[in-house]
């Protein structure tokens, strides 16, 4: 583990030009030379991560070799499509809208999710909205037990702790959204002989904030090594529209608006970024506390939470496990 001598919020500052060039070269090498594909498909959410990923692909491969996909569904925010269009216009790339709502309905995504919610809120039904949220894991020792927050058509809100069965049912049904999008991305990648770009930043990648074989699936992930603050810096450097840079990161997965903080990270992403960096570089809790404004105990809980997520999300990162190594395949794909 590396040790930091002077920890401050400036540790996340990067040489945007240098980093951009490095990623551009890597994308060209991966897509053209290793994959021998002709371009890249990027699913666009109207957020900064997918915008920066698309902008980097354009610089690396050329605007005629990048396709942006908008994949709204019945519960998507209208902002996602509007902001996504601002980006594709700015980049000058082809964009395609694929409404995945009917596919999700056919798969029973909404019905199965609502059935799972009704296990804890029997009256939940048409016209209701919902999201799932975590308790505050930073201020006191607590388990990461999710609750559902449901809003009735008349605006009354209820918060109920989920049972294991209802929690797993909601997540399993909701994961159809990320997986359906990936199916569409690979359809276009296959027909164009392109590769699929994944869009996670380091917080998401390291902390397992993705759906296995959903948004976690991709042929390459060009910003997975970058902290969120660094993605914003690249966004500014690459000319990502200001409104996208100012938008608060949301999951855009549940019908009630849900921040990534309440769904997964428990802290503002700026603070989580610094804590993850500090932990990765062996910075002590007291030093992190003085920079972030958290107490030493809070930083220790955040460190424990990071470790816990690293451990519990290992499964998401693992490829299919073989009983024996298949040498002839492995020799061709590594390197």
């Amino acid at each position, binding site marked *: 583990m590396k040790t930091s001598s002077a920890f401050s919020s400036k540790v996340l500052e990067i040489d945007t030009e240098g980093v951009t060039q490095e990623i551009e070269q890597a994308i060209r090498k991966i897509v053209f030379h290793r994959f021998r594909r002709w371009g890249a498909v990027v699913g666009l959410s109207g957020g900064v991560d997918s915008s920066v990923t698309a902008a980097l692909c354009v610089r690396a491969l050329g605007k005629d070799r990048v396709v942006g996909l908008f994949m709204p569904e019945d519960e998507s925010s209208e902002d996602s499509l509007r902001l996504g269009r601002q980006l594709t216009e700015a980049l000058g790339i082809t964009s395609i809208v694929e409404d995945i709502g009917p596919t999700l309905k056919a798969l029973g995504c909404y019905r199965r999710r609502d059935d799972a919610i009704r296990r804890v809120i029997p009256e939940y039904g048409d016209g209701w909205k919902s999201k799932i949220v975590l308790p505050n894991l930073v201020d006191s020792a607590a388990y990461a*037990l999710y609750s559902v927050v449901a809003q009735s058509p008349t605006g009354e809100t209820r918060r109920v702790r989920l049972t294991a069965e209802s929690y797993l049912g909601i997540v399993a049904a909701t994961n159809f959204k990320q997986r359906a999008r990936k199916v569409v991305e690979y359809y276009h990648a296959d027909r164009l002989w392109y590769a699929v770009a994944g869009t996670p930043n380091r917080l998401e990648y390291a902390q397992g904030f993705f759906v296995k074989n959903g948004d976690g699936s991709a042929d390459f992930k060009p910003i997975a090594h970058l902290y969120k603050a660094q993605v914003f810096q690249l966004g500014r450097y690459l000319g990502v529209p200001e409104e996208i840079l100012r938008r608060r990161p949301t999951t855009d997965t549940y019908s009630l608006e849900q921040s990534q903080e309440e769904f997964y990270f428990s802290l503002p992403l700026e603070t989580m970024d610094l804590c993850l960096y500090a932990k990765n570089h062996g910075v002590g809790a007291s030093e992190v506390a003085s920079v972030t404004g958290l107490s030493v105990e809070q930083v220790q809980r955040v460190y424990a939470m990071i470790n816990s997520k690293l451990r519990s999300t290992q499964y998401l990162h693992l490829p299919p496990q073989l009983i024996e190594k298949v040498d002839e395949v492995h020799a061709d794909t590594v390197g």
Partner: protein
Amino acid sequence: MDRAEARDSAQATLPQEVMFHMQEIAQKIRCFVIDNFLFGEADDHFSNDDSFFENGLVDSIGILTLVEFVRDKYAISIEDEEIVPDNWDSVSRVAAFIQTKLGAKA
């Protein structure tokens, strides 16, 4: 005195028949943990005082499952604020928590 100390102190003064009952509860919890989280493969080193969390035995889904097992088995209601590591992070802690809840119910 924090909650854990209060619980330990309360246990130290429990009469013998209650202690016996507690061992029975601990044994049931231990069996549940071994069956569900250790897949029946517990070795002799697994102690009733081992932290579930520090040993990576139980994640949040596991805790939920354990909470639901305890709730149904002992017919006790468990409030959100009671689902904290002080009460649920080892076989002994869970047994003591159940004992306290059953005592309060009696």
